[in-house]
């Protein structure tokens, strides 16, 4: 499971590509080339990249708006993303939808998100169950935020996935802010991983700014799902360093908090790690940066060359009228489905809470967490102080 030197460099490439692509989008936004908003994942790149990197090609993802890194790891190119944001004809949705709202059921195995948070969780549980029925050992992974975990469908989806033991990895990306709402107004929890207890499934915490830790933890969770012991909830503690979108200066975020998390920047931290562990040379770093530069230039040129979509396209494609072939891909003979006797059998297997791999909840946390066990913890004390100060000011 240990990462090779080459893999270490790839993680760096993906994180930098994620960041620099968003930098480019920000520039294009200011040049009025972007239609709609730009949603930054500055400071969260390790979570997107580390989680997606732990999957195989056969596995499925459904990204959220701040998982650009995962979309890139899954095989989309900067041109696709730039065209989505600039609403061009050649974009993956042909201009029908924007931002990260696109996907592909065949090659990339990525389900398009919708803006309503939490809906992806039962959908991805269904993909996991469907794949299992077809005899395919595929894992579905999706993300939710600290804010999104307050929705009803988060509960419905994760609970259903748990009773069905669906091969689902849910990454709860605790970036501490849901638009302007701090996470202490979302839930009375220090650790959002504790939500897992309600479903009898493992809930593990990982330092979301440590890409290697994120990768290793996700890898364990994916393996556990592959063995039939899903789902797993991973809380990735991280921080959203920009506003909700470009228009939002995020004045509501205390300065000390921003500063503290700037110091934990996942890319700078990883650079230091690679140097300390002698995993790269200066030349290799420069080559990666030059490659990204070149790829972004090419992507931008291609995106800008694409025309806007023809207006009449608005009326097309509401229904599938034979434009797509719908066929289930079986990895087992579909015929010998044994008739079930009684669902009571269902409960005879071992409880997922006792699954050996990640152990019972406390033990599980210790085992799975790589890096500081609870990087967000100190903040809560400061957050309390901040709240108190605010109260006194009033």
């Amino acid at each position: 499971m240990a990462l090779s030197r080459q893999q270490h460099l790839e993680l760096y490439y993906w994180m930098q590509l994620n960041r620099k692509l968003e930098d480019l989008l920000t520039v294009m936004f200011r040049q009025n080339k972007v239609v709609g908003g730009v949603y930054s994942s500055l400071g969260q790149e390790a979570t997107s990249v580390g989680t997606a990197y732990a999957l195989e090609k056969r596995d499925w993802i459904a990204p959220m708006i701040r998982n650009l890194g995962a979309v890139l790891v899954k095989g989309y190119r900067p041109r696709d993303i730039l065209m989505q944001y600039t609403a061009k004809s050649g974009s993956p949705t042909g201009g029908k939808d924007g931002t990260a709202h696109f996907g592909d059921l065949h090659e990339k195995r990525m389900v398009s998100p919708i803006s309503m948070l939490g809906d992806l969780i039962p959908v991805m549980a269904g993909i996991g169950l469907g794949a299992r029925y077809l005899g395919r050992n595929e894992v579905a992974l999706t993300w939710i935020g600290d804010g999104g975990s307050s929705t009803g469908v988060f509960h419905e989806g994760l609970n259903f996935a748990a009773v069905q033991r669906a091969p689902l990895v849910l990454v709860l990306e605790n970036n501490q802010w849901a638009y302007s709402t701090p996470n202490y107004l979302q839930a009375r929890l220090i650790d959002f991983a504790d939500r897992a207890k309600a479903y009898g499934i493992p809930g593990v915490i990982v330092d979301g700014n440590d890409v290697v830790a994120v990768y290793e933890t996700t890898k364990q969770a994916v393996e556990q799902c592959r063995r039939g012991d899903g789902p797993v909830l991973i809380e990735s503690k991280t921080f959203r360093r920009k506003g909700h979108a470009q228009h939002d200066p995020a004045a509501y975020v205390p300065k000390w908090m921003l500063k503290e998390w700037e110091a934990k920047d996942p890319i700078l931290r990883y650079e230091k790690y690679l140097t300390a562990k002698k995993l790269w040379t200066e030349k290799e770093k420069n080559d990666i940066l030059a490659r990204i530069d070149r790829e972004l230039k090419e992507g931008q040129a291609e995106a800008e060359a694409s025309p806007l979509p023809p207006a009449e396209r608005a009326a097309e494609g509401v229904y599938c009228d034979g434009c797509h072939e719908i066929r289930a891909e079986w990895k087992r003979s579909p015929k010998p489905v044994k008739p079930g006797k009684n669902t009571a059998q269902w409960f005879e297997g071992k409880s997922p809470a006792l699954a050996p791999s990640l152990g019972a909840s406390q033990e599980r946390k210790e085992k799975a967490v790589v890096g500081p066990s609870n990087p967000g913890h100190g903040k809560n004390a400061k957050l309390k102080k901040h709240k108190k100060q605010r109260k006194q000011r009033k």
Partner: protein
Amino acid sequence: MPVMTYVQAVGRGLWEEMERDPAVLMIGEDIGVYGGAFKVTDGFLAHFGRERVIDTPISESAIVGAAVGMSYLGLRPVCELQFIDFIACCFNQITNFVAKSHYRWGAPVPMVIRGPAGGGVHGGPFHSQNPEMYFVHTPGLKVVCPSSAYDAKGLIKAAVRDNNPVLFFEHKFLYRRVKEEVPEDDYIVPLGQAAVRREGRDLTLVTYAAMVQVCLDAAEQLEKEDGLACEVIDLRTLLPLDKETILSSLRKTNKLLVVHEDTRTGGIAGEIAAMVMEEAFDQLDGPLMRVTSLDTPVPYSPPLEEYFLPNAAKVVKAARDLARY
């Protein structure tokens, strides 16, 4: 030919589709061990196994969401909502995720969402509704409302085979009251085709689901008492709407009365009226009229519910008013 109730015909259609195609699955509350609140899936679990007959927690959004995921793999899940009133609990999944999927990113969603709808059984405000129009208003869905056992089987089979999400509203008043011969063959009734249930030249009654029988009763009475020959059209599918069958009947009778059990404001009658204005205004010899339920929740107590619902007497009265033009 075996005689079946409407509810048995739905079950038979689903059974045949599951035997025909291993990609067809059932998912819903109490559909497995219990066989469904109305016994539509009775015996399915023993025959098809728990992987294909999935009992779920009380989580309508999870039922629909999971079915979407399965459909993305080329499977054809059929969701049962125990009462169709609960469709409001998964409204977001249906209108935002399911309906827009193909348009937004080219991902077809071949799934069916079915359940018992309609009043007349004193089920009260939450077990009697006709929520079809929320979904007729949503591009990307198909909406089916069968009125006979023959159609129930043929339409559910067509719905399962359709490459788009189909909402299938079974009328629970008809479940055991409608009993007729249903062929054992593998036949389908195509979606989007209305049926002429009774021919006539004086005026056209357009309706669907449980109101078909009400209109046929009214037509019988109008024939006997007034010598009026009413044509009765059963829409069968509300979305897509079979405009041609409505318009060709209108060209013959020049008078249109729409009858639906759904509440009045925003019901299908308004949509049909607008369509007729646009496409056949010059064919009308009188105003397009409608008989519908009241614009209230569905009340519980029998006299209240009877007052709320359309019936043959209300249809006869409206038809007589229309015939005078």
